[in-house]
Each structure stands twice: as structure tokens, then as C-alpha cells.
């Protein structure tokens, strides 16, 4: 990376951090591009060099979350983890990322609701995560770690909705438990239900 590129990256990071801080402090709607630029100590025009809109910052937040998730999942596999471990890593990392800040989660939620663009990008990113979960669920079933009667697609969706439900509560209900604390038992319950040699029938 040239020095120039490095400086550009630093500016982008500063803008990103400033935006996140403002999202937390003032909410998504209460944050303007002017205030982000001012907080980052750059001119407004500089903001637009790095992000097309305020929405682009929100999309970046979600992209960071899903790429961290993908990395954690790959790491679990690289460490010799089973496909079930991979699924757990996927869902819990989504939770850890979003669970780091209630206000930020709320801001992301607000962004997906306010902006069709963020919503569309978010849907696409989560579809990728879902595909990852489906592939791991298929592998888990082939390996006999998940019951044959459990369709990989259903298991993937159940794991994803565990997260979606938990993050919804986390972002909208100030009294709700920390995200990972709420999510972990749900993931356990969902995987327990999918285990082979299931009680039923």
C-alpha cells in the first residue's frame, strides 16, 4: 500500500468510526453526513470520496459483520471443527458482532428500515450467510451429525432466524438480555432438535 493509499484508508476508517459513534449517540436518523465529516475532522466532500451516502456506511457495517462471520466459520473449520461447529461459529459470530453494541444494532436496524438500498444489500449479505449454513448443514447431515429427516434448508433457516429473532429483541427492547446470552441457548436448542437418534417416533 502506498503512503497515499494508506492515508486514504485511515481517513475512511476515521469516517467510519465517527459515523458509528454518531449512530450510537444520535441514532441513525439523527446522524447527518455533515456531522460525520465534522466529527472525523474532514471536509464534507471528503466523506463522499469514501462513501456514496450515509446508507453506504450502514451497508459497510453489515458487510463487516458478515465477513467477520465468514472468517470465524472458516477458522472453525481450519481448526478441525465439524460442520456443526462451523454452523455454531457462523451464528454466534453474527451474534457477537451485533451484540457488541445495542445502539449500533438499533442504528443498523433503522438503516435497513429507512433505506431500500441498505435493506437490499443486507438481504443479499444474509442470503450468502444462509447459503453457507445450508452447505454446512448438508455436510453435517452427510456426516451423520444431523438427522436424515432434517432438511438442511430448514436447519439453516432455523439457525438464522434464531439470530434474527435475538437481534430484533436486542435492538428494539432495551430490557432484553445481551445478544449472545439470548442467542446461545436458542442455537443449542435448534441443534439439539436436529440431532440424529432423535427421541421422536
Amino acid at each position, binding site marked *: 500500500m502506498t503512503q497515499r493509499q494508506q492515508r486514504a484508508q485511515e481517513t475512511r476508517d476515521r469516517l467510519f468510526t465517527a459515523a458509528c459513534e454518531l449512530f450510537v449517540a444520535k441514532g441513525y436518523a439523527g446522524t447527518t453526513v455533515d456531522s460525520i465529516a465534522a466529527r472525523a475532522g474532514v471536509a464534507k466532500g471528503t466523506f463522499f470520496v469514501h462513501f456514496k451516502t450515509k446508507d453506504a456506511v450502514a451497508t459497510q457495517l453489515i458487510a463487516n459483520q458478515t465477513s467477520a462471520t465468514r472468517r470465524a466459520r472458516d477458522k472453525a473449520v481450519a481448526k478441525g471443527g465439524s460442520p456443526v461447529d462451523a454452523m455454531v461459529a457462523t451464528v454466534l459470530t453474527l451474534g457477537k458482532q451485533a451484540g457488541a453494541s445495542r445502539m449500533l444494532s438499533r442504528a443498523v*436496524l433503522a438503516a*435497513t*428500515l429507512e433505506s431500500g438500498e441498505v*435493506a437490499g444489500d*443486507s*438481504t443479499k449479505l*444474509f*442470503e450468502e450467510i*444462509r447459503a453457507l449454513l445450508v452447505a454446512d448443514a448438508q455436510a453435517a447431515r452427510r456426516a451423520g451429525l444431523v438427522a436424515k*429427516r*432434517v*432438511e438442511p434448508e*430448514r*436447519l439453516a*433457516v*432455523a*439457525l*438464522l*432466524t*434464531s*439470530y*434474527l*429473532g*435475538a*437481534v*430484533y*429483541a436486542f*435492538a*428494539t*427492547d432495551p430490557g*432484553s*438480555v445481551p445478544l449472545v446470552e*439470548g*442467542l446461545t*441457548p*436458542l442455537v*443449542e*436448542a*435448534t441443534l*439439539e*432438535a*436436529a440431532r440424529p437418534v*432423535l*427421541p*421422536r*417416533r
Partner: protein
Amino acid sequence: MNVRFIHLAGPVVLAMAIVACGSTGGTKSPDPSGPGIIATPPPTAQAPTAPPHDRPVGVPVDDEPNAGPPYPIILMHGMGGFDELQAPIDLTYFYGVVDDLNAHGENLVFVTTAPPYDTSEDRAAALAPQIQAILKQTGKAKVNLVGHSQGGMDARVLASPNGLAMGNVIASVTTVATPHQGSLVADLVLGLLQNVPPSTVDQVTSAFLSLLQKTAYDVQTDPHLRAQLTELSQAYMTSTFNPKYIDAPGVPYSSYGGRTNLEDGLPDCAMNVVYADDPTKLDTAQPEVSATAAFLQGATGTVNDGLVTIASARWGTFLQCVPADHLAEVGQLAQNGPDALSGFDHLQFFEQLTARIRAQGL
């Protein structure tokens, strides 16, 4: 709500059909746009013809139209319910319950059929003639209604003075996992929830609709399905349905709810209950309801059976939480014997439910 398919078939059930609407014979999948047709006790339940007291052989029972208890027990299915096309031939909604109750000496057990995808008003209208037919055939003065899921709402419409006002012929109403306060899942599918991003709506909706074997397009275009889901929404139940369909005076109402997700149900299931359930017995949701179960649990933090929370299932005297998901409560899909994890046995559950009604002299 819920539970897909079920076919009233099996030679046993086919053998006997009460004709409610003047047509004859055999079970038939109800026309969703019209009334359901048949109540179908298995052969032993023909015992409507078994007189409660001495009567010359051959005298039709309906010569004595006002016989006292024990009154017939009518099992009423929920959303979906009966769908000939999608059901394995021997899969019935209340899986094996009628046979089991018969084997325990309960001969007055009937299963009614309502339009699978319609409002409780329309379903109740279809059910009323079936109940009249059961009264006529058995010669009994009243019936006990037992509704699973939306079936419990149907029962309330039938009984309520503001509904079909049949309270004078209803001995009791028992609901099992009926969403008396609506279900968040219905809200979500209808897009009524604020603050839920589209990707979440998509995932949960697709999981729920695949259970019903319906699509998002159906929700948009099928007015019956849409009206039904609307009725199951939280706002509708609490602000329209409940204020309107007040309980019938003098009729005892009681209810059960289910818990899954490995939740012990505490403290909800230990408070204001008639029978404590065993919090060490835990249930896992079957794949068909695991996504909605996980979402509901995560989003509301409340104990639920995959579609209905315990709080929503309460109506009248709340009897008990059972460790079962929304499908397992009625033995779906095709459950035999107790669940190895939770120990829940739906046949035993219905035996107890029935025994309680009988113990009350109904």
C-alpha cells in the same frame, strides 16, 4: 394456527361418517370455500347409538334429544387441518387420539372439519351444522368442545352470544395452544410488525408458509388465507376478536399451552396453573416449526410452542403447560409413544384432558 394436512382417512375413520349437510357418506376433503362436511367418529364412536340407559333396541337415539352427560367430546382442528391432497393416507390431525380414547372407554368422541384456510367466523359457520348433527345423532343435550390452535377460536365463536350463540348446547370449551392474544408470527407474515427488516420477514415467513405449504403470493392473493392470518394477528385478537366474542355465560372455559426450545417454562408455567408441569422435561422443536420457534423465543423472550406463546394460549382456567411443540401437541407428525426427551405423550394428554371434563360431570 397451523398444522398442515391431515387426512381423515384410515379405514377406521372412513367407516363411519355423520352426515351433517344432507349429503352422504364417506369422508371428503372440505371445500375451503364451503362448510366442512363430516364429523367422523370411528366405528366405536357409533356408540352414539349406545344408550346411556335402558332403551328398547332399535329405537333411534334422536328420539331422546336432551340426554345428560357424559356429553360428546368434539375435537376441532386448527389452521390447515384437513387436506386430502397433501396428506399421507393414514395421517390424521389428532393423531390416533380417537382410537385411543375409544380404547379407554370414551366412545363419544368426534372430529369435525372446518375450512382449512378461513376465518373463525366462517369456520364456525361450517362447524355449527356438524355439531347439530352430532347432537341429533347422540341424543345429547350438549357437547364439549376441544379446539387445538385456531380450533379453539372456532369454539369460542360457536359459543359466544356475539357469535353463533350456541352456549346453551355447549357444556365446556377447552383450548389447546390457541393464540387467544394472537401470534407474532402472523403479524410478521402480514408485514404488520414495525421495525423488522425485510430479510427477517422473508426468512420467518418462508419457514412458516412452508409449514402450511403456502407461498407469500398466496398470502397476497388469497383473501381467505389473508383474512385468516389477519384474525390471528396480535392486534386483531386483542382489540377486535376478544372484545367481541365474549364467553358464553355458564360455560366453563379452560386452556393448555405448549413449550419447546428446551425451555423449562419457568416462571410462566408455574404461576396461575391448575397442574404444574415438570420443568425438568424439555422439548425440542421439530424441524417444521423450529424456525418460528427460534424466532419467537429470540424476539419475544417468551416461552412458546413454535407458533403460540404460553401467554397467548391462556384463556379461562389455564390448566397446564405441556412440553411439546405446536405439532407434537396433537401427535404430529405421526408420533407414536412418548417423546424420548420430553416424555410427552399426546395420547395420554388427551386422555387426561378428557378425564378432567368427565370429572366435572360434563
